């Protein structure tokens, strides 16, 4: 008596949940990629947890608060670990619309991910795009801070150099006033040798190009 009932349920199950069924979604897990050595084995208990999480997500949707774990059907579990699932209504005759399931999963994606220690990339719901996390914008971009630091240092250094240059110039202007008087006196003396003033080579016609003078030509030999 029970066997026909069992077969009936299995057949209905197979009709509602099979690959590419209406309102069915494929899920793919990459446990070993995510966890490495700490990876757990995917067995029926994990499937039970998954069905529980999907049922939990559906309960958050208005009008679907009565979703039970038994309404979530899994099928075609492969070694990859990938499988298909559908959510049926309480009568178990037809499946809930894909849009509702999709919005429910998207709202609770975080909880589902963390139940399995996975993230959006390693627990994939094909055809359900994940809402990407908002970028963590610092209030002030980092580059402006670094720029401000460097620029302030450069401006302070320029100011110091310019001020020290001005101060040195003032000191030089005050200092050699005594020296300048002596130099003026020297220039007034014109050396006279043999009645000829000793500045015949000054610029009176012609121009000496220092670049073309070699050392010997500059001084007349003794």
């Amino acid at each position, binding site marked *: 008596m029970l066997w026909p009932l069992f077969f009936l349920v299995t057949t209905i199950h197979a009709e509602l949940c099979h690959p590419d069924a209406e309102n069915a979604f494929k899920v793919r897990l990459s446990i070993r990629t995510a966890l490495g050595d700490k990876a757990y084995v995917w067995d029926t208990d994990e499937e039970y947890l998954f069905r529980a999480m999907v049922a939990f997500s559906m309960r958050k949707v208005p009008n679907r608060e009565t979703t039970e774990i038994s309404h979530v059907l899994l099928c075609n579990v*492969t070694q990859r670990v990938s499988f298909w699932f559908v959510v049926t209504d309480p009568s178990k005759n037809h499946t809930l619309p894909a849009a509702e399931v999709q919005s429910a999963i998207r709202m609770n994606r975080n909880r589902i991910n963390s139940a399995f220690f996975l993230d959006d990339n390693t627990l994939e719901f094909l055809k359900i795009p994940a809402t*990407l996390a908002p970028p963590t914008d610092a209030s002030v971009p*980092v580059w402006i801070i*670094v720029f401000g630091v460097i620029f302030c240092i*450069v401006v302070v*250094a*320029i100011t110091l150099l310019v001020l020290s*240059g001005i101060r040195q110039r003032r000191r030089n202007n005050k200092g050699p006033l005594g020296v300048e008087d002596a130099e003026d006196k020297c220039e007034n003396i014109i050396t006279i040798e043999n009645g000829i003033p000793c500045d015949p080579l000054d610029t009176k016609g012609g121009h000496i190009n220092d670049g073309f003078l070699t050392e010997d030509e500059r001084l007349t030999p*003794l």
Partner: protein
Amino acid sequence: MAQASGIDPLVDMEDDRPKWDNKLQYLLSCIGFAVGLGNIWRFPYLCQTYGGGAFLIPYFIALVFEGIPLFYIELAIGQRLRRGSIGVWRTISPYLGGVGLGCFSVSFLVSLYYNTVLLWVLWYFLNSFQYPLPWSTCPLDLNRTGFVRECQSSGTVSYYWYRQTLNISSDIGNTGTIQWKLFLCLVACWATVYLCVIRGIESTGKAIYFTALFPYVVLTIFLVRGLTLPGATEGLTYLFTPNMKILQNPRVWLDAATQIFFSLSLAFGGHIAFASYNPPRNNCEKDAVTIALVNSMTSLYASITIFSIMGFKATNDYGRCLDRNILSLINEFDFPELSISRDEYPEVLMYLNATQADRLAQLPLKTCHLEDFLDKSASGPGLAFIVFTEAVLHMPGASVWSVLFFGMLFTLGLSSMFGNMESVITPLFDLGILPRSVPKEAMTGMVCLVCFISAICFTLQSGSYWLEIFDSFAASLNLIIFAFMEVVGVIYVYGMKRNISPQERRSSTRAGCRSPVYSCPSCPHCGSHQLLWLICCTSTDGDRRIHIWKVV
């Protein structure tokens, strides 16, 4: 009787000319000017394109026959005549003053756009102080359902360079607006340059200790890091394996000569300016050989570092290509996770091709060859801002390496900028354009201000197109013509037999004095051959113009 002066009259000539504090400052300044961005991103590309180790043969031949003699001429006349470029050529002959004026103008134009490259480097440097690096992910689109479309199609690194840094417009006619981020970086760059050249060689002499030596420290760190990365040896062997047949291509010889010429920063007038502050008794022949050899050795050293990191990147990309294919196979055929290793992949592919070819054909599988990834070469900013930034993303501790790399590029470019600015400032001082009462700081400030205002055009959205134009036409052919005129001027106008090297003036072996042109009897011929070839090649093959800032 005239006063017999026992003092060397050369020392008497200009007592108040600034001097280097010590020989090391002078050497470091010349090395810093010669070693620039081109040593990092042009020489490795040439090595890779022209048969690896085989390229070193034409390179060193060009160094000996063209680079060192021209360099020696510049140092010698600068040191002997103790003036900047305009003054030196006017002294040799008033009719040659135009050569000096030309060098001065080219230096001015080059410093405009060279500093623009530095501002891009500074922008990347400032953005490296965060983790994850901003060019590792695409920004989200408005719905937050995915990434920006433009970024998905071009890749994160290219998107960051072309959109978020340059915000490039469609063509040069479409100028767009000034990018305020680049404008701020421009202000910072010119302020830094002003800070370092504010008192001429007094201030650059101090700054050069850091800016010339820091790149070598970073290169060594990168070398050690690069050689320990997986895939480095593949990169080095593949890229250095010599291919001797390539030497039959005349283009190789021309590129080697061009690379030496622009790498040593000849004909800018910067080396003349630096040498003019030397004591007259300095041995400039030894300096010329030393600096030229250091420049070439730095190129080699940098290319080993770059190749090892490119080898790592190629191996990484190849591994990820394989992994993507393996994941497609696993997902399609529902194999267990991690069941196919990279080595087993070819066999599995063959097996599936034999058994389930139709399902296999629908998958987007790409063929992965390591040589394809190794062959992807880049030079110029493509190497630094796109290829290297992507390589850095996969190294552990990405931010640190990025900071170090862009810091190194910035100091390299800054030390070259010192040479450019000196070749602009020294002639202005020698000509006495402004009265002596105007302090030096004001003069250099005005030069930097004029350069800054002129360079604002490069911060427009079309700025990089303008930079390409400047780079292709402002300097390349002009410098070669100036170098040719320099050689002609020194040999035929100034005279081959005139003693340029001062240390031989009082030596007993007068007959054995060598003027620099004796060491290169072929120098004018080299110069003219290269000039003719370049004119011929640039006129027929418009794409292959030389980009100075990629080479200098």
